[in-house]
């Protein structure tokens, strides 16, 4: 028995068993998808390690692109199809995004391009040299406040002027 056939057989049996025992078609579907993934992996099974040496046509880059280019999208499509086929009694609803009380969040409250990388910028602040300007609100009632940050380009604005004076 080839590994591929054995894989499909065992997983089909598992799918039937779990589908019958658990009465959950989605659990059975997931097992079938995992089996198909294992079987698909079995078809493209290659000898370990020495492909680049034995057959120069097989470059690791091409294999990687092949795996990413076929494996992830095919599996994603299968999982997507599985997710779209819900058991009869379930339903899909629409609601508000969870935001700890901020029910109607606006674009002004969302993360921006400069606020998103702040944790990384803090860690590498010595190397990046980010300028920050913060004018907090004054008084008891919410008043005008300002925060701005600017990270100079490490190559063009910090590296090049040192290497090429007068630029």
């Amino acid at each position, binding site marked *: *028995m*080839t*590994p591929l056939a*054995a*894989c499909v057989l*065992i*997983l089909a049996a*598992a799918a039937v068993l779990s589908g019958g025992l*658990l009465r*959950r078609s*989605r*659990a059975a579907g*997931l*097992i079938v998808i*995992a089996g198909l*993934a*294992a079987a698909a*992996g079995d078809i*493209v*099974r*290659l000898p*370990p*390690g*020495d*492909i680049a040496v034995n057959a120069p046509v097989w470059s*690791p880059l091409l*294999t*990687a692109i092949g*795996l*990413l280019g076929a*494996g*992830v*999208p095919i*599996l*994603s499509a299968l*999982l997507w199809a599985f*997710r779209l086929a*819900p*058991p009869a009694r*379930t*339903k*899909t*609803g*629409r*609601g*508000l*995004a*969870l*935001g*700890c009380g*901020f029910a109607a*969040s606006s*674009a002004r409250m*969302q*993360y921006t391009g400069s606020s*998103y*990388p702040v*944790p*990384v910028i803090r*860690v590498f602040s010595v190397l990046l040299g980010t300028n920050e300007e913060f004018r907090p609100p004054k008084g008891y009632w919410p008043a005008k406040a300002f925060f701005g940050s600017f990270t100079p380009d490490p190559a063009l604005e910090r590296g090049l002027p040192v290497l090429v004076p007068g630029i």
Partner: protein
Amino acid sequence: METITLVLSYPIILLLAPPVMLGLITKTKALVAGRKGPPVLQPLYDTIKLLGKGAVYSSTTTWMFKLGPVVSLAAVFCASALAPLAGAPLISFNGDAILFAYLFALGRFVTVMAALDTGSSFEGMGASREVAFSSLAEPALILTFASLAYRSGGLCLAQMFAPHSGPSAAAGTILVLGTLFVVLLAENSRIPVDDPNTHLELTMIHEVMVLDHGGPDLAFILHGAGIKLVLMSALLVRLVLPEMPPAAALGSLLFGLGCVAVAIGLVESSMARVRMVRVPQLLVAAICAATFGLMLTLR
């Protein structure tokens, strides 16, 4: 025999090992705290329950939000085909270690995109922290892979994690093991980097990103996270396992996964989550340990 073991190992590792490992961690924590704790198979029951449920989607979300869980699970499935588990991996080529690391990165990328898609500032915060800490965990992982690659003479996971002995191996292996364990804790959002049990707290990282997911989407995310934990633990176990026949290798791998789960449970029982500002220091320490490991291997 080898074929049967190989065929058996993948369903076990992909379907059963993730919930059992998560259940063992919870059980260990409960026993240390003097409680009885939920059954070991509780995560499996949760996943099956979630798969049968409907879902509520935020009105601000688009297809990206639904794509996140699907692609992240597909990415870890593909990564599992590259990992050496009981025997040789399903797919193996020179350079697969890099693809393995970046399939995890692909999974993280789509999870982050799905979190940002909700438009909730809360989930944006989680996404921002997740990428910040993973950008520090990644060099540690790559440096570890570099020392293993130098030792084995190829960037192939099957060779890198094959049983290895030699005078220079021991010291380097201990550092590599330590680094991999810290990276495992960070990548799988465990204590001391993140607390998987906190919900609705401003201190959390990974959990905050998946708050809006429910039903089958949440089941995909939880199972994908479980597979990721199992794969990284399997690499850790493979480093210390000696050469043995496939059936014994599968048995000892499963035993080793159990030991890693108990170790994670003990770590989580004995210490609290470190402060957010200390997490980069922990990860930089892991990078330093990985660098020393590489130096010892190059020596």
